[in-house]
């Protein structure tokens, strides 16, 4: 395989200095040459001003020299700025390239690598560790050249002024040059340790956070604090040492260079007193010498950055210096199209420490054949599937896929022809649709634009949603979406029409499950605010938290005799909620039935205390506002920690009518009251179809509701539209807004959508309920049989009778293979497994 460039981890830090930065670096060099000249010129002018202009009392000379002085100072500063900008550009460009290169390399590394590598380490490597090396690359040409040149220029100038003095004052520098590397060596040692300790620290954090359930479960806070504390202390000591030596490099450098003027004063002063040196020359000499410090200091700093950067770079790159087990893409041909023929001969997989996970396995599958892999956990069935799927590189024997050796195929060849569903599939942040298209998109990228597979259509996607049983879930997401008045104009009108038919057809069936928006009934599954307003506000001051601060609204509450009773309710809610949830973590499970959000809880704690100690009228306006605002959120059907007095309920119903009258009079355009003929944009699609809200979370009832809606949507030809909206549901980071079953179904769906020739499923249905599992099994058996080769690692033995072949594994060996019926008739190991004999 021809490799155009060495892998990023093999590159030395120096290789980044030129390369694609060559042009910028050349520009820097030119600028430096001019800058150095512009830096030396003022010295000469200084001397001439004192010696010629002042001594000869010639104002025109003074003006001319000063002008030149000023011009060169401006030029030098301007150019220095330009050089710095270029330096930053180079280092940021390099940082970006290093990051991209290293990231691409890291994600291509074999799965094995990540067994021992915590994500935290990758994060810190990519984010913080590469900054120092990149800084070095930015400085690599500019810093040494400009400072060395300046130094040499000043030194020459000093010799030109007075060779003896020059030699004396420069005699200090060799000492520094000798001393600094000695100290720097210690700095480097400390830095290496620092990188290691930082790594352990990020590993530790990662470990604790991923295992937070265990920590809580065992109240192992002290253990974790001790472990973490130990590493932090070690890092503290190392950092202290690192900074101590770094500082000592700086200080000793400063000390020795400060000795320079001392020497010049002694010798130069003596020579001037003796009349052997002009005063102007001494002044020029002193200031020239003064100017030596800056470049020298910068050189030393550069030296430090170079050393630190080099150490960090080498440590980082060396850590990731493993090679991918398979080439990513073919370089000299198009990716193969492989038939679903699988043949495994004497396959073995031995780990680095000599453990034989797979032992001489041989089997063959014709295109379209289905095989179930069964066995105890640890028998190697997953490993076998992963070796055939190229996720692990087998160490011996052969695995042929479409007559090509899996080991020699590139990742792209595999991805184009095979679908793999992992046991714990990963769902990415984005919409359902994004995740559905993930495999297809990747496969299309593979085909290099010449996509043989067209982009899947909405119908294709809906089809796989059906096949995997994700359809109803997606429909639910759609039904729970809100519509936009502008964008969804047409749909809204349709939905309002649907509402009437819905009432006619299902009103009775669902009466037990749905609370309809009726003007003279209290809505127990809506908030107090919703009950009072009974509509959607078109103005900000009449919605959300602003409502409780709205003067008109407060005046209305007083008129309706509601202000104090509501505040009382708020106080009760605050006390009870704080009492129950006060010490619990901000988990969704705990706060689902709470009127107070987890982030507000701390605010409400002192308030709850206040309401115990004081009467309502003794509270501050701010406190009373908070209580009122809380009461307005109260939903009796959900917030069960307080009782809802009947009197208050009646007052609120009265208030609803009063509010409507009042608002019609005062702000006729501020509200859209719930009306059977209007769409309510502040409510979900489902609530709009119902013109009400569901009362229950019982699965059975939900099923009835969804079935009714589906029937209705089919009649109205809206089903696809709503599912389309559901596919825009954001699944959250790692898909955490989906249930385990939904994630697994989505992972299967995205592979089905790709329709590969070989489908490998590694306990892919383990998190599914019986129905969903049966549905997928049925799809495999009826639609894919004879078309797609399937290898399924199976945990539950009651679903394997549909497979053409069953392979039984034990301790890395294949001990039985054959058709289900044959194996059962043999009464061998499979028979024993199924009948519970071990």
């Amino acid at each position, binding site marked *: 395989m021809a490799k155009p460039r060495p892998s990023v981890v093999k590159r030395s830090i120096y290789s980044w200095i030129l390369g694609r930065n060559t042009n910028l670096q050349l520009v820097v060099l030119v600028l430096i040459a001019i800058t150095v000249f512009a830096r030396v010129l003022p010295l000469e002018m200084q001397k001439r001003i004192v010696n010629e202009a002042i001594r000869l009392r010639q104002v025109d000379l003074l003006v001319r020299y000063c002008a030149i002085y000023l011009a060169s100072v401006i030029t030098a500063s301007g150019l220095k700025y330009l050089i710095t900008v270029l330096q930053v550009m180079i280092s940021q460009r390099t940082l970006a390239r290093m990051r991209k290169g290293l990231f691409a390399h890291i994600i291509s590394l074999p799965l094995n690598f990540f067994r021992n590598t915590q994500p935290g380490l990758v994060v810190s490597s990519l984010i913080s560790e590469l900054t120092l090396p990149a800084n070095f690359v930015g400085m690599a040409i500019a810093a040494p050249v400009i400072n060395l040149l300046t130094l040499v220029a000043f030194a020459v100038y000093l010799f030109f002024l007075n060779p003896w003095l020059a030699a004396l004052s420069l005699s200090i520098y060799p000492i520094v040059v000798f001393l600094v590397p000695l100290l720097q060596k210690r700095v480097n040692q400390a830095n290496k340790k620092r990188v290691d300790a930082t790594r352990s620290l990020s590993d530790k954090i990662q470990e604790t956070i991923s295992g937070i359930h265990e920590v809580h479960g065992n109240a192992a806070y002290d253990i974790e604090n001790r472990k973490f504390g130990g590493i932090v202390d070690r890092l503290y000591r190392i950092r202290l040492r690192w900074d101590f030596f770094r500082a000592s490099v700086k200080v000793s450098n400063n000390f020795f260079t400060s000795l320079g003027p001392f020497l010049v004063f002694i010798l130069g002063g003596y020579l001037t007193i003796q009349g052997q040196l002009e005063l102007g020359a001494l002044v020029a000499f002193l200031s020239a010498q003064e100017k030596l410090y800056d470049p020298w200091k910068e050189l030393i700093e550069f030296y430090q950055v170079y050393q630190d950067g080099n150490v960090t770079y080498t440590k980082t790159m060396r850590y990731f210096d493993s090679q991918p087990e398979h080439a990513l893409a073919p370089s000299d041909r198009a990716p193969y199209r492989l038939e679903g023929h699988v043949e495994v001969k004497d396959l073995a997989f031995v780990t680095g420490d000599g453990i034989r996970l797979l032992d001489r396995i041989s089997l063959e599958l014709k295109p379209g054949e289905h095989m179930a892999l069964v066995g105890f956990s640890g028998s190697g069935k997953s490993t076998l599937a992963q070796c055939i799927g190229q996720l692990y590189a087998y160490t011996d024997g052969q695995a042929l896929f479409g007559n090509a050796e899996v080991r020699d195929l590139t990742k792209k060849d595999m991805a184009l022809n095979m679908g793999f569903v992992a046991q714990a599939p990963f769902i990415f942040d984005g919409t359902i649709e994004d995740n559905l298209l993930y495999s297809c998109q990747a496969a299309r990228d593979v085909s290099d634009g010449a996509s043989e597979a067209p982009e899947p259509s909405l119908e294709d996607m809906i089809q796989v949603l059906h096949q995997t049983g994700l359809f109803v879930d997606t429909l639910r997401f759609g039904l729970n979406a809100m519509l936009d008045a502008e964008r969804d104009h047409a749909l809204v009108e349709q939905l309002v029409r649907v509402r009437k038919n819905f009432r006619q057809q299902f009103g009775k069936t669902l009466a037990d499950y749905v609370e309809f928006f009726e003007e003279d009934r209290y809505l127990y599954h809506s908030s107090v605010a919703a009950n009072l307003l009974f509509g959607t506000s078109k103005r900000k001051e009449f919605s959300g938290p602003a409502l409780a601060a709205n003067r008109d609204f407060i005046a209305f509450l007083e008129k309706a005799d509601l202000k104090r009773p509501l505040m009382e309710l708020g106080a009760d809610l605050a006390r009870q909620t704080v009492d*129950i949830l006060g010490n619990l973590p901000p988990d969704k499970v705990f706060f689902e*039935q709470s009127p107070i959000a987890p982030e507000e809880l701390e605010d409400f704690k002192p308030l709850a205390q206040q309401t115990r100690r004081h009467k309502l009228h003794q509270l501050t306006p701010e406190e009373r506002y908070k209580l009122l605002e809380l009461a307005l959120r109260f939903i009796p059907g959900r917030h069960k920690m307080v009782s809802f007095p009947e009197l208050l309920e009646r007052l609120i119903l009265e208030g609803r009518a009063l509010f409507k009258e009042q608002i019609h009079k005062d702000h006729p355009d501020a509200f859209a009251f719930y009306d059977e003929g209007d769409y309510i944009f502040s409510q979900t699609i489902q609530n709009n179809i119902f013109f009400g809200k569901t009362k229950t979370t*019982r699965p059975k009832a939900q099923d009835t509701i969804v079935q009714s809606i589906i029937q209705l949507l089919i009649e109205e030809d809206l089903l696809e539209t709503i599912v389309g909206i559901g596919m825009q549901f954001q699944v959250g980071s790692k898909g955490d807004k989906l249930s385990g079953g939904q994630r697994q179904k989505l992972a299967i769906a995205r592979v089905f959508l790709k329709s590969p020739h070989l489908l490998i499923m590694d306990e892919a249905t383990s998190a599914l309920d*019986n129905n969903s599992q049966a549905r997928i099994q049925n799809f495999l058996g009826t639609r894919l049989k004879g078309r797609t080769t399937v290898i399924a690692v199976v945990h539950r033995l009651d679903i394997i009778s549909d497979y053409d072949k069953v392979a039984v594994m034990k301790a890395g060996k294949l001990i039985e293979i054959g058709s289900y019926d044959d194996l059962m008739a043999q009464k061998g190991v499979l028979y024993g497994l199924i009948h519970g004999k071990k």
Partner: protein
Amino acid sequence: MDSSMEKNKSDASCEFQQNLEILRQIELFAGLPMETLKVFAYLCRRESYTAEDFVFREDDDDGQAVYIISGQLFLIHETDDGEETLRTYQPGDFIGGLSLLASGRRLFSLKAGKDTECMVMTREKFAKAIAQFPELVPRIFRSVVDSIRRWDQHLLFAMTEKGLSLEGMTGISAL
């Protein structure tokens, strides 16, 4: 622990308070401290079923436990020949405590005999809550072990009484 049982002067019977009272009667929860019980009481929900509604069915892994407030539930085994009723539960009975502790598929179905109201706790909520009070886990285990032993004892007694063979039937507490 503060004034804990919030004096709810206006009405002592909000759902949360009722749940709290119920939990104190269920063996699995009875001995737990008030602070913990409140969290459980808060997390419980009410569900109502009409006759023939299933609370759960064989092979489901529904992960819930129910306490009957009113009505009647039947534990049934569905066979090819029809249904066999194994037990009848009345108000005050608590069913499915084990499924709060670990996942597993149901061996039986639970069906409403008439309009029934239940208090329901789910495994997810139970697990999240108990994780907050890890020191209580041993107590929970204790009460599970106790009830298994009592069950075994009961079976032993009942079968000896009827003169039935015990072989292979009891001994679950010796697991």
